[in-house]
């Protein structure tokens, strides 16, 4: 019998303690980040889709079309092509297509690039009505950015 009342007492007490905690939290300031009105800066290492790095002076991509990124990619999302210009040495990038819809953001491509030609972008809020929009032509994006 005393056990019954003990349990009744401690049980009721625990319920009121719980109410107290939620009430305390109710008076605390909200932690919400109101996204479209305010947004977090992405950390330096945030991994968005990859993008090409342009040469600081010319704006041309640093990529030398070695194809390591393409080879290293687990999901075959990168396809790039280059051609050898007349008289120049080394290849010049003519197209760099990234199928972001298959990417798993593992970073193998960035890691395997010995020339520092690609990096992660900070595009963290992509959304749109067409899935084709996420097959990026990185070369074009680089040119647009340069402008």
């Amino acid at each position, binding site marked *: 019998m005393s056990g019954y009342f003990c349990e009744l007492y401690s049980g009721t007490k625990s319920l009121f303690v719980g109410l107290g905690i939620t009430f305390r939290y109710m008076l605390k300031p909200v932690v919400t980040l109101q996204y479209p009105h305010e947004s977090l800066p992405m950390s330096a290492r945030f991994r968005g889709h990859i993008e090409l790095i342009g040469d600081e002076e010319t704006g041309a991509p640093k990529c030398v079309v070695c194809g390591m990124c393409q080879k290293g990619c687990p999901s075959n999302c990168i396809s790039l092509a280059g051609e050898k210009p007349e008289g120049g040495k080394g290849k010049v990038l003519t197209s760099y297509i990234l199928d972001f*819809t298959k*990417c798993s953001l593992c970073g193998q491509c960035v890691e395997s690039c010995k020339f520092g030609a690609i990096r992660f972008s900070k595009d*963290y*809020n*992509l*959304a749109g*009505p067409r*899935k084709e929009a996420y097959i990026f032509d990185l070369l074009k994006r680089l040119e647009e950015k340069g402008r």
Partner: protein
Amino acid sequence: MGKENLQSAIVQFAALDQLLALGRANSLWPMTFGLACCAIEMMAAGASRFDLARFGAEVFRPSPRQCDVMIVAGTISKKMAPAVQTLYDQMPEPKWVIAMGNCAISGGPFVFEGQYGIVEGADKLFPVDVFIPGCPPRPEALIEGILELEEKITGTRRWPRVEAG
């Protein structure tokens, strides 16, 4: 895309249509339905930090009958595909679909030659209105997707666009 199977009303009242669109756009109730990794980010979007509730979209209904939008968050395997299809069919019109994450868009990292287990994209099963790429996308991207859907329903965007950077 999702509107294609909506019958057009015989009498069209432009103002009323707009009101309805506003009503629908601002009260998008998603389904409690997660497939894989992205579902966790979906939960995170509903949690305190990002708070999907601000747009009236936090009412996660477990029953497809009461949902407006299905957020396909994760890989659809071939075994799961009929179930997902059923859920879509069970939702009452008007309904929308958001494909969240790369798996739901195209099968994502699980596509390889000779793969036998997954459906390569939710749009193979039913019309998808908004795609959110990422593996998984950040919660902000999901919010962006909801806003994108609202824009699609009402035709205008009420919120500022956020430039990534």
